[in-house]
């Protein structure tokens, strides 16, 4: 197995600040905007962005929630892997709000498809955008594209893109893993 570093901690930090600025350009004071990190690994990115928005750019009262899409996935009983549920925490209304889905890697688009269905259980958002740190282009199964992307990556199907976060993995980095 080989690891190729795609992004260092410094590059991740620069990208996070750029993404935060792009969000501010479109959402201003975030009064009608909610950030939704997709479980499990989109939550780290969402928390980090919320932290940057609040601390570095002084945006107040960011509404941040976490959405689990396990029960909405289309591969239940289709794979060897057991679908593992995570906690959903959305303690605010999404009705008529601008929702920003946040996930670390956009690959086939099926997780986002499931998230689009899942969020409807909480109300009818005004609009939904997608922010991803890594966009694995040319690998989409569904017509889904991000509104905000950190870095585009070309990877063949056997390769895996792994995003690491200091809170969970001890470092901020992105690797391309080949078996």
């Amino acid at each position, binding site marked *: 197995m080989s690891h190729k570093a795609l992004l260092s901690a410094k590059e991740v930090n620069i990208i996070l600040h750029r993404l935060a600025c792009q969000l501010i350009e479109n959402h201003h004071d975030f009064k009608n905007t909610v950030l939704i990190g997709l479980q499990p690994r989109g939550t780290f990115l969402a928390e980090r962005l919320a932290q940057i928005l609040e601390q570095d750019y002084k945006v107040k009262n960011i509404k941040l929630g976490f959405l*689990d899409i*396990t*029960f*909405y*996935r289309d591969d*239940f*009983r*289709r794979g060897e892997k*057991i*679908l*593992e*549920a*995570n*906690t*959903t925490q959305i303690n605010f209304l999404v009705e008529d709000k601008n929702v920003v889905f946040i996930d670390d890697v956009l690959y086939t688009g099926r997780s986002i498809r499931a998230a689009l*269905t899942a969020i*409807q*259980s*909480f*109300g009818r958002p005004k609009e939904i955008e997608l922010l991803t740190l890594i966009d694995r282009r040319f690998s989409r199964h569904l017509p889904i594209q991000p509104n905000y992307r950190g870095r585009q990556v070309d990877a063949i199907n056997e390769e895996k893109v792994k995003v690491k976060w200091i809170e969970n993995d001890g470092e901020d980095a992105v690797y391309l893993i080949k078996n």
Partner: protein
Amino acid sequence: MSELSVNHLLGIKYLKASDVDLIFETADHFKEVINRPIKKVPSLRDITIANLFFENSTRTKLSFELAEKRLSADVINFSASQSSVKKGETLIDTVNNILSMKVDMVVMRHPNPGAGVFLSNHINASIVNAGDGAHEHPTQALLDSYSIREKLGEVKGKNVVIVGDILHSRVALSNIYALQLQGANVMVCGPKTLLPKYIDKLGVKVETNLRKALEWCDVANMLRVQNERMDINYFPSTREYSQQFGVNKALLNSLNKEVVIMHPGPINRGVEITSDVADSDQAIILDQVQNGVAVRMAVIYLLASKIKQ
């Protein structure tokens, strides 16, 4: 998350502690789901479930049906009173006919103990025992333990007394297994005539004095007197039963602690518990009902994940 060690839920006796943990963890997620504005998830949209009730039921049947529908499964219902069972058809023939309609899972209540185990040896579908005679009622025991865990934080180390008609109760046996599996101390309390011989061999304490039992316990699970299962008189009168084994507010207030009161329903108000107890903050009877849907969703979801396409 791992997976269940069993392909059917026939009784708590067949489960491991890790299975119960997995069911509860999954039920936590479903409890959150059923409190959303839209309470339904699409997970089981390609699964068909047959609810076969060879014996009357209101809340268990409704609870299972709701759980199945909230998982988006297709549901067919069957009750023995309106079926060919009356014409002499065997259980296997009845079930096989239903299964030939491409049913994936069977939820069955049957008056005969062991009916679920028998069926699991003869058919391919996943089976959930919704009560087999006076034997087991595993989902009731799971939701009871889940409710204790929710109320008291954990089941381990808690003192739980099951009061009343232990002899005819499938809820009692499943509860004993489930509570012991999770490390609780279990006592049964009731008239001697309604306590099975050798019940102490299951490792439970036995008590015939309700006050002593209440002084010992953290939780009292009050069972219904199952008059329909009694072929002889087990106690002189309902009034006397109520006086000796019924819980009322005065009795609870005279204890120096707060006992959690549970009841699997339906309640005979004024017999097992008085109305002021049933409707008090100490009773978690309606929580049990709500948790029943989440726990049954978890059981069905986890069993369905093991059905091969």
